[in-house]
């Protein structure tokens, strides 16, 4: 087993991790800031892929799909928040979880009705077809693009949430909406924005994953489990945690694939079990804030 193989493997792990990070991020933001565990996240990821595909074929360009699908589905997410989730704040934390669980059934079946239950091909954008010779091996251009795009999105997101007043409102609003209202914040708008952002990120993940996998109604359910594992390892609500854990999971899967490939799925769960045994609140989670 030579070094170049290990480096290539590492790179595939990072690309895998990048998609995980972007989806887990949406989940963690919505949880951290609204206290909502969004079980429909996977379904929205899937819908994002369909929307991306549909918009790309409508406009004739993948790039429009990439840009518009997250916005459109994000807006749809706001609608979900406004019509359904909003009624549940202040009830037990389980309620939104259960509601979105039911919602995911509706969304998946809805897509089956509209687009059929078969997979649909999602062509790679022509500019990114093929592989790039890295000297030590070939790597798909598209995956390199995904890595870079995710890095940019992360940076922007982090700057807004940690460095601005908006970020403070958002973090506090999650924990105590009542006091935020008393302090003059229209918390409803904050909720809308956060949920929209989370869902938009899910959709972005979906569009990005589209050209790597075939698009089908079930593609979200697997992603959901992975995203959960990543968020839990990273610490629910922690953005840095999601990033670190996403890459960690991607790379471990990839490295395990080298030695015991059939264990690739289990390794994720095993990693989680180990992390939680050592730190029950996740790597970057804050103790006692879990419910």
């Amino acid at each position, binding site marked *: 087993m030579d070094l170049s193989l290990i480096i290539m493997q590492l790179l595939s792990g990072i690309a895998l991790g990048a998609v995980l990070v972007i989806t887990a991020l949406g989940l963690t933001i919505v949880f951290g800031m609204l206290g909502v565990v969004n079980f429909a996240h996977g379904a929205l990821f899937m819908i994002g892929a369909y929307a991306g595909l549909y918009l790309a074929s409508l406009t004739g360009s993948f790039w429009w799909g990439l840009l518009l699908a997250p916005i459109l589905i994000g807006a749809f997410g706001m609608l979900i928040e406004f019509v359904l989730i909003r009624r549940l704040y202040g009830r037990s934390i389980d309620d939104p979880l259960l509601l979105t669980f039911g919602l995911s059934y509706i969304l998946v079946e809805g897509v089956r009705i509209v687009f059929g239950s078969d997979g649909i091909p999602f062509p790679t954008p022509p500019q990114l077809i093929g592989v790039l010779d890295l000297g030590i091996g070939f790597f798909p251009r598209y995956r390199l693009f995904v890595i870079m795009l995710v890095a940019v999105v992360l940076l922007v997101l982090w700057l807004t949430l940690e460095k601005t007043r908006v970020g403070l409102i958002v973090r506090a609003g999650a924990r105590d909406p009542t006091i935020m209202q008393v302090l003059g914040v229209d918390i409803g708008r904050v909720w809308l924005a956060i949920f929209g952002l989370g869902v938009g990120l899910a959709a972005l993940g979906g569009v990005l994953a589209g050209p790597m996998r075939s698009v089908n109604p079930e593609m979200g359910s697997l992603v959901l*489990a992975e995203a959960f594992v990543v968020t839990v390892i990273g610490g629910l609500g922690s953005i840095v945690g999601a990033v670190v854990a996403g890459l960690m999971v991607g790379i471990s899967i990839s490295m395990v694939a080298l030695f015991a490939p059939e264990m690739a799925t289990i390794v994720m769960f095993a990693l989680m079990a180990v992390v939680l045994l050592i730190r029950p609140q996740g790597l970057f989670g804050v103790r006692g804030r879990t419910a």
Partner: protein
Amino acid sequence: MTGPSSGEAVAKPASSGLAWLLDHRVLLSIAVLAVLPWLLPSKALAVNVLIYGVVVMGYNLLFGYTGLLSFGQAAFFGSGAYFTGIAIGRYGVPWFAAVPIAVLLSTCLAAAIGIVSTRTRGIYFSMVTLALAQLVYYVALQAASFTGGENGLRGFTVDRINLFGLQVNFLDPINKYYVLMAFAALAMWFQSRILNSPFGAVIEAVRENEQRARACGYDVERSKLVVFMLSGAISSLGGCMLALHLSIVPLDILHYQTSGMIVMMVLLGGARSFFGPFVGAASFLILEDVISLWTPHWQIFVGAIFVLFVLFLPKGIWGTLLDALDSGKARR
């Protein structure tokens, strides 16, 4: 789930009709179950109501009464079924011995998962149970020589059983139903015992306020672990029933979607109500049965009903019904 449960926990002196009903909840529940096969469209469905009723009831102990939202109950449902099947098929254990063995082993599994998961709180608990249960799923998938892997466990058909010297044809749906009902009755009696016991009070205290429970002198971690094991034990009994009923153990039984279904059923019936799990299991299964005959898109209806329940009937069918009966009377 949320809000007070009215009149479900400790029965007060039988001053009202409702209180009388609650005092005799086990007997009444059994009476309802006894006529069930004659009310439902098929016997197989009735048996499923029994099985899922027991599984969900066990889960209700954890989720409804203790407030621990686990997404891993499928692990115990499945382990009960697998252990029963393996004991009978591989080791030739007679069925009546296989069931307690399976429950015992499943309780051990629950202890193992519980030790890790009850250390965590809130949503972490949900996620950890989900992940650990998935781990069980993958282990079952990999250990194909024991479990049959993806193909499921087979080869342990119980077709005749000896009931106190009486040879009974277990393939006959009615016989099967009443034999399995005895198990369900046992589970109900056990659950009722737990709820009425001093430990039932501890469970409530832990649900309401862990820190306070600790300051009152309860070992919260240990109590949660015990509940987790009791809940796993009851749910695993449902698994044993499934194995006896179907003569196969499908791998999907361990999948997290089974856990999801269990959660749905408890919600539909009414968390933290005694008979709710059976109502939930019955309504879910009937609904699925009826709608899936009518349209292949049954999931959209199941999803919608689920959403509507969370929004408007968070106490489920049975819980809401009990509330309606109880309204006007002083809450306990």
